[in-house]
């Protein structure tokens, strides 16, 4: 019990009264055990082991940690504007007034957050745009594309001002370092490159992944780079030594996405039917999410309220409570009229700065905006039942 986190301990204390019957039952079993064992020492050890390691006790503890209630999400707006898959989306992290999407039709489009009207179309890439990042410290936006380039866009001029040239193949993702003037990009050539924003120089090349890299994130403290790859690994990088600090090999398949928690120093990663969250900086397993039968998961995003969204390749949307790993809402997207059977999948997602709006980019070329319903409450809309598996626990 001493190893339980504080919030769980509190929950336990709150529910002690309701559990009296259960406790007396377990005590009975214990006494029977004691009666059979003869020496006192043996008795003590058996009691201790029963307390911590018995399946019954663990299951009881799991039921104890009631997940936090979250309001359900509903489709708010559908925006049709792109002529190809919407591969990446990013919000204006400073004023929260606009968001930006990149598409397979090679364009980047800027949309107004409140009116959902098109503000600007940026053309400059020769192939599909795969990654976008808006800087908090600079008036810059960075885009990664399959044409091997990372571009730096000046948001005051609305023009591309710098190209970062050096990847051998398509670039899948770009991230901005929160404190240094560096960006990290990675893609099909299975290396993470760190670029100096000003001089366009590749400062460090991080070698270690064996397959194309799907996502890169930058953190202000070590590990400063986190990346996930098709070789089913997540690597936490030490950029000073220029090599991997830790490799997470829990996943069995292509790890398609990572998401950082906005407040907690932890992140989540997803492969087919498997979402896990990890404690930083050491990279130890935190939670197994109840993500069986979710299918291929393309995208993850987490908001400040502790909602984890997972968007699947078949259009399934799953909303989880981040702390307990509880799936509380599961829906499907609505494909736009006239789209094919295959054109129903979520490719990318992000929460806005407030966390109350979810923006998804989909294979039916549309951008969908989802909002939490205001009038729902825990009694009328309790969400899916909390039935934890023994594998889905917070460590």
């Amino acid at each position: 019990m001493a190893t339980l986190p504080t919030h769980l301990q509190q929950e336990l204390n709150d529910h002690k009264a309701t559990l009296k019957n259960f406790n007396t039952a377990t005590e009975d079993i214990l006494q029977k055990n004691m009666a059979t064992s003869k020496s006192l020492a043996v008795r003590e050890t058996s009691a201790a082991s029963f307390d911590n390691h018995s399946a019954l006790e663990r299951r009881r503890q799991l039921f104890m940690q009631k997940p936090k209630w979250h309001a359900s999400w509903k489709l708010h707006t559908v925006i049709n504007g792109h002529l190809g898959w919407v591969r990446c989306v990013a919000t204006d992290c400073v004023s929260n007034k606009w968001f930006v999407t990149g598409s397979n039709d090679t364009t980047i489009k800027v949309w107004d957050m409140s009116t959902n009207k098109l503000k600007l179309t940026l053309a400059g890439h020769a192939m599909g745009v795969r990654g976008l990042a808006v800087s908090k410290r600079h008036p810059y936006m960075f885009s990664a594309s399959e044409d091997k380039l990372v571009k730096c866009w000046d948001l005051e001029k609305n023009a591309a001002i710098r190209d970062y040239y050096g990847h051998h193949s398509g670039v899948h993702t770009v991230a901005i370092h929160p404190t240094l003037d560096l960006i990290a990009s990675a893609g099909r050539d299975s290396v993470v490159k760190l670029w100096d924003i000003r001089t366009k120089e590749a400062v460090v090349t991080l070698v270690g992944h064996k397959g194309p890299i799907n996502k890169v994130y930058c953190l202000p403290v070590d590990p400063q780079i986190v990346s996930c790859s098709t070789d089913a690994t997540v690597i936490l990088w030490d950029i000073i030594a220029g090599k991997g600090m830790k490799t997470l090999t829990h996943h069995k398949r292509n790890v398609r996405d990572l998401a950082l928690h906005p407040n907690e120093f932890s992140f989540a990663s997803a492969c087919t039917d498997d979402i896990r969250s990890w404690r930083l900086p050491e990279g130890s397993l935190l939670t197994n999410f109840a993500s069986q039968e979710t299918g291929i998961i393309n995208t993850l995003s987490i908001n400040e309220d502790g909602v984890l969204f997972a968007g699947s390749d078949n259009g399934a949307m799953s909303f989880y409570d981040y702390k307990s790993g509880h799936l509380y809402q599961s829906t499907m997207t609505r494909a736009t009229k006239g789209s094919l059977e295959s054109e129903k999948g979520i490719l990318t997602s992000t929460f806005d700065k407030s966390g109350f709006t979810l923006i998804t980019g989909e294979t039916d070329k549309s951008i969908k905006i989802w909002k939490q319903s205001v009038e729902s409450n825990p009694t009328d809309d309790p969400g899916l039942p909390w039935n934890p598996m023994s594998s889905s626990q917070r460590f």
Partner: protein
Amino acid sequence: MSTSHRPQLESRSGAKAAGYTSTSIEHARSLPGHKTIKYRVTEPDVIRSEDEDKIMIADENQKHKNTEDTVKKVVETNEQDTTKSLIKISKEQRAKYSVSKPVPKNKGWRSSTTFSRNRNDKSKGEKDEYVNNITKSSYHQDFIRKITK
């Protein structure tokens, strides 16, 4: 156009070229340009620093008086200012979004009958509906109608 769209068993790895040493070749794209880096000047930070300055000045002036009172005053005046501005903004927004009640049009009795033209006009609703298929879009349909005869 790169070859990154082409199917390959294994794409070219960047790891092999990581130890590559640069040559004397200079590419036009790598020539220096945009030599300065821009930083954002965020408004909240500026306001905060001004507030701090005010409080600092007040502190310096109040060697003989009670400093806490003045700080409180400064904070109160600031709060008043902000509330005033908030009220102003909300009023403006209300003015912007308040829509005057639509005056009911004086319709003829014909429009309310069962078989009126307005009710049975089928082409009305379907005109600008988006279809996720370029060949089914109204633009393309019109184009085809013009071209094929």
